[in-house]
C-alpha cells in the first residue's frame, strides 16, 4: 500500500510541475484514522497525499464545486470514484476533458477497528473502469455474489411487515440530508427538498415526512445509482438505504436487461430511453 502511495505522490508532483492539472483532489491525514479529502495546489504539498486502507470518502462530488475550472482538475479515483465521475459526466454536470483521472486499483477499505466496510465488501468494480492514468497493477475482481440477497429476503415479507420494517427504518432518520449531499447521482440544481415555495417536503421531522423524502430520493436516482454505498456509510443513524437502491436496480435489471451505472460512459441509464419491445402489463 505505501509503495502505491509513493507512486501517487510522484505522479502528483509530476502533474503539478508540468502544469497539466491546476490542483489534485485526494485524501489527506485527519484526526485518528480519518483520511478526509484534500486539495493540493502546490507541487511541494504532494507529501500530504495519503493512500492506505482508510481512504474512504468518495471524491467525485467535489467536481461540482468547481464547475467551470480554469485548468484541468486531477482527481484520485478508485472504482467507486471513477464511476461517480462517469455519473457526473453522463448527467452533463462535468465535462470529461476538464478532469484528469488518476486510477488507483483498490483492495477495499476498513473502519477504525479494521473491519472491512460494507460498501467495499459489496464492491464489484475495484479497478477504476474509466481513467487517464493508472498506478500499480489491476486487482482481481471478486464480484458480489449476494448482491440482492437482502432485497430478496425483504421481498418475501408480507406487505404489512414490509411497511412495518420501512417505517421503523425511517423513524430513525434525523433528516440531516447527508445521504443526499454525498451522493454523486443527487446533483440537481435545486433539490425538491429546497423548493420550499412549492412545498414538496415539510420541515417537520416525523416518520411519514422522512419516508416520503427517502422514497422520493431513492426513486430519483433509481437508474443512476452507482452503488458506491456512501449514503449508508455517512448516515449517522445507520439506515440501510442501499436496500432501497438495490431493489430498484434489481427490478431494472430484470425488466430492461442488466445494467451497471457509471461503468460505461456510452451506455445511457435505462429510464432515460425505451425500446418498443419493453414488457407490457398495462394493455
Amino acid at each position: 500500500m505505501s509503495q502505491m502511495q509513493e507512486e501517487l505522490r510522484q505522479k502528483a508532483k509530476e502533474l503539478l510541475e508540468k502544469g497539466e492539472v491546476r490542483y489534485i483532489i485526494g485524501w489527506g491525514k485527519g484526526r485518528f484514522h480519518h483520511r478526509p479529502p484534500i486539495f493540493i495546489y502546490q507541487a511541494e504539498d504532494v507529501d500530504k497525499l495519503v493512500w492506505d486502507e482508510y481512504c474512504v470518502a468518495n471524491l467525485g462530488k467535489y467536481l461540482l464545486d468547481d464547475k467551470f475550472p480554469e485548468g484541468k482538475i486531477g482527481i484520485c479515483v478508485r472504482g467507486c470514484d471513477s464511476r461517480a465521475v462517469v455519473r457526473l459526466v453522463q448527467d452533463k454536470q462535468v465535462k470529461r476533458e476538464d478532469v484528469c483521472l488518476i486510477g488507483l486499483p483498490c483492495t477495499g477499505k476498513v473502519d477504525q477497528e479494521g473491519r472491512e466496510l460494507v460498501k467495499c465488501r459489496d464492491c464489484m468494480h475495484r479497478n477504476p473502469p474509466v481513467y487517464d492514468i493508472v498506478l500499480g497493477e489491476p486487482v482481481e475482481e471478486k464480484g458480489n455474489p449476494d448482491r440482492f440477497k437482502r432485497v430478496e429476503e425483504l421481498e418475501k415479507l408480507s406487505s404489512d411487515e414490509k411497511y412495518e420494517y420501512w417505517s421503523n427504518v425511517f423513524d430513525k432518520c434525523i433528516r440531516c440530508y447527508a445521504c443526499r449531499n454525498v451522493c454523486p447521482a443527487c446533483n440537481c440544481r435545486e433539490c425538491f427538498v429546497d423548493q420550499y415555495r412549492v412545498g414538496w417536503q415539510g420541515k417537520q421531522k416525523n416518520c411519514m415526512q422522512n419516508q416520503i423524502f427517502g422514497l422520493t430520493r431513492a426513486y430519483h436516482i433509481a437508474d443512476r445509482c452507482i452503488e458506491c454505498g456512501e449514503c449508508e456509510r455517512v448516515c449517522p443513524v445507520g439506515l440501510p438505504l442501499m436496500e432501497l437502491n438495490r431493489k430498484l436496480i434489481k427490478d431494472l435489471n430484470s425488466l430492461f436487461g442488466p445494467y451497471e451505472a457509471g461503468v460505461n460512459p456510452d451506455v445511457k441509464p435505462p429510464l432515460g430511453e425505451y425500446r418498443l419491445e419493453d414488457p407490457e402489463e398495462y394493455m
Partner: protein
Amino acid sequence: MSLEEQKQVPENWEPTILAFCCNWCTYAGADLAGLNRMKYPENVRILRVPCSSRVNPQFILRAFQKGVDGVLVAGCHPGDCHYVSGNYFTRRRFLLMQRFLEYNGIDPRRFQARWISGAEAGKFRDTMLQLCEEIKELGPNRKLREVK
C-alpha cells in the same frame, strides 16, 4: 397509528381515487363516456396531464400522503402518443414504481396504470368500476398517510 387500528373501516366509507388522465387520449375517452351517459363511480377524481409521462413519482407519493386510497395513471396506447415516445417512458417508469411501492408495503393494486385511447369510452368506465371495486375491498389506505 398501530396496524390493528388501520384495519377497521368506518361504515359507508367511500374510497378516494385519483386518476391522472393524459389529455389527448384518456381524457378524451372520459369525455366520450360522459357524452354517452356512461355511469362510472363519482369518487374518482380526474387530473388532466399533457402526457402520461408528465406524472412524476412525487405526485403519486404525495397523493398517498394526502389521503388518496388509489392512484391510476392512464395514457395513450404505446405508438399513438401525441408526443411520440411519452408513454414508452411512462411504461418503464411505472413498471418500476409499482414494484417499488409493493416493496415498501403498499398493495400494488392501489397504484395502477392503463392505456385507454380516446375512443375506448367503455374501457374507461370499466376500468373505473373495476378500480373502485378493488380499492373498496382493500379498505382505506393508511400507509404513507399524513397523520393530522
